[in-house]
């Protein structure tokens, strides 16, 4: 029995049909799940912000292990470097059979100099280099079965908790990088703001973002359906997340919780009434991990690819035309003229 799903389909030949009994199509979900688990995943996260904002601590808290550069370098010194350098650290972490190769890219020196002009250049360069590497692999004739993905999936930008507005360096950085990577701004060391101050600060930041035309993750235009839009709107309304990070545990009401102990109380990191760390973690890892990767692959990478292919005038769609014999000399000449 053929149901009339014609009405919704613009294509005349596609029909909806009813199934009379069990077929087993839904088993494909399991197959997909198994394959993903077997293949493992790669996730590359970049943290950007001035020294002392707690970037390394936050990353360690997010992934509940010592993933940051600070914890891995044998002779780590808290020196402020003279230029912005990028350091990349990779780990393999596993949870319930799912293996993840996590790469954390740190940017020491960002915003630390007296003159911070163009301090985002090394970062932009690094991001584009990763896209370039992937592109080169993709256009090879003999391609690898799985192209190693070193593209930056997410960039967490740390805003100092001034309580006022975005600073010029913040605006400049996010404007430029918002176009090539998914930025997630967070308010660092948020335990210096009261709840009201936090709200006002966030509102002002959101205003500044809109005024400057900065698009942070999750971007409005990539919402695929109304459900997703509702979900993402809720997230957008609470951006940027005010976070606190720590790796120390304390006893609160008989439970061990991650928290920062101060004389006036214990700030529980995973308590949503205290700070928004849990929201950030849920967004990044539990609900939007795949989406971050998809947006990077389908949007940012494609934009880079289009730009790159256009500027070196490598028009691949011409490839097939040159292989076929010219049937009408004049027509092809016109095409090649427009191409030149």
């Amino acid at each position, binding site marked *: 029995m053929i149901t009339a799903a014609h009405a919704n389909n613009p294509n005349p030949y596609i029909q909806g049909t009813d199934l009379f009994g069990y077929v087993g199509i839904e088993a494909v979900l399991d197959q997909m799940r198994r394959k993903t688990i077997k293949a493992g995943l790669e996730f590359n996260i970049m943290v950007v912000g001035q020294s002392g904002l707690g970037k390394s601590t936050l990353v360690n808290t997010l992934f509940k292990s010592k993933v940051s550069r600070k914890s891995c370098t044998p002779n780590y010194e808290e020196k402020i470097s003279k230029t912005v350098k990028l350091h990349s650290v990779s780990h393999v972490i596993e949870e319930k059979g799912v293996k993840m190769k996590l790469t954390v890219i740190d940017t020491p020196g960002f915003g630390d100099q007296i003159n911070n002009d163009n301090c985002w250049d090394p970062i932009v360069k690094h991001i584009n280099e990763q896209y370039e590497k992937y592109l080169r692999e993709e256009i090879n004739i003999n391609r690898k079965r799985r192209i190693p993905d070193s593209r930056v999936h997410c960039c967490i930008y740390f805003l100092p908790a001034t309580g006022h507005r975005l600073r010029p360096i913040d605006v400049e950085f996010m404007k430029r990088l918002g176009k090539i990577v998914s930025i997630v701004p967070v308010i660092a060391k948020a335990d210096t703001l009261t709840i009201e101050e936090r709200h006002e600060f966030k509102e002002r930041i959101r205003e500044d973002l809109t005024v400057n035309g900065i698009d942070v993750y999750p971007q409005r235009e990539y919402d695929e359906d109304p459900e997703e839009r509702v979900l993402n709107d809720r997230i957008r309304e609470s951006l940027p997340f005010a976070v606190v990070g720590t790796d120390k545990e304390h006893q609160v009401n008989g439970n061990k919780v991650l928290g920062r102990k101060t004389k006036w109380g214990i700030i529980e990191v995973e308590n949503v009434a205290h700070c928004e760390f849990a929201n950030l973690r849920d967004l990044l890892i539990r609900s939007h991990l795949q989406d971050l990767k998809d947006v990077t692959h389908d949007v940012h990478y494609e934009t880079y690819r289009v730009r790159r292919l256009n500027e070196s005038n490598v028009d691949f769609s011409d490839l097939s035309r040159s*292989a076929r014999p010219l049937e009408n000399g004049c027509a092809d000449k016109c095409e090649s003229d427009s191409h030149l």
Partner: protein
Amino acid sequence: IWLTSIRPLSLAGHVGFDSLPDQLVNKSICQGFCFNILCIGETGIGKSTLMDTLFNTNFENFESSHFEPQVKLRAQTYDLQESNVRLRLTVVNTVGFGDQMNKQESYQPVVDYIDRQFESYLQEELKIKRSLHNYHDSRVHACLYFISPSGHSLKSLDLVTMKKLDSKVNIIPVIAKADTISKSELHKFKIKIMSELVSNGVQIYQFPLDDETVAKVNTTMNGHLPFAVVGSTEEVSVGNKMVKARQYPWGVVQVENESHCDFVKLREMLICVNMEDLREQTHTRHYELYRRCKLEEMGFKDTGPECKPVSLQQTYEAKRQEFLVELQKREDEMRQMFVQRVKEKESELKEAERELQSRFEQLKRLHADEKSALEEKKRLLDDDQSSFGKRRAAAQLLQAQSLTANGKKDKDRKK
């Protein structure tokens, strides 16, 4: 950039990225899945019925005639849904396969169809502005090859066709209308088929053994290939249930009874266990092979003549130069041809002119001749006239003289 060596770390608590497979699955549920099956087999062998039985539905089918002049392919796309999984299924059937007198070219339309789907995917992938995640993947994921239940061996048409297709698509051979073969004959038939395939070097699809969860069942199933299937959409009551079956006077062949035929095994393998693997193999093996061959055919290489890596860009620039040079050559050729044509036309015209001129001269001469002839006549006539005039004048004079002489004589007499 400096990297530390990659080392495994242990987690101090639940992070939550184990939900990634679920996130991926959810995304796929929203987008839906695509699956394309190609059925090759002679007319009337039961392709459409098997598809109906496999997917438990009634696809729009109509019987084909046996008199098709050439093998054609007919593709139909359907949207199926089971619980929350949406599947866009495309079933491609051959029409007229095995009906022609001369079957030498029978495989060609099939190969062409498969290549066309690869080509359009490749075109999309090579575009500058592309939309791969929205692309309706029409590449053939599985090819069911229907073998006639002769009980002896494969036909040469079967071997030739399968050999041509084995590097392009995942072939799953099935023995159709298996209720015409007895169990013992079937066993021998299967062995014969598999040994013929092996000895002819035909690579059929092997169910994958790398995932421990399914390796065991896949190994068993690999040993049951090719599956002997019976298809039916009609239901017959057996015991107190209605089952899909074919009713004969001598008994009822139940489609879903594993001791009657291998239909359930086929469904298990094709859909429940290996659908994702079929799609993956198509993309990572068959499509990559096609892409590699196509690009190499067009002159692209990864390494240059001194085995130094040549970027696609350089090769492309070189190709483009070549292309432009050829274009220029073509243009010159056309120009030359044009000039040639003009010359020819000119000489033709000159020739015609000359001819015209000579005809004119000839006519002129003719006229001149006639004119002189006429003048001659006129002169003669004039001469005649003048001599006649003279004679008349002479005669008149004579008459006048004789008259006067007569008058004088008369006068003399009267005196």
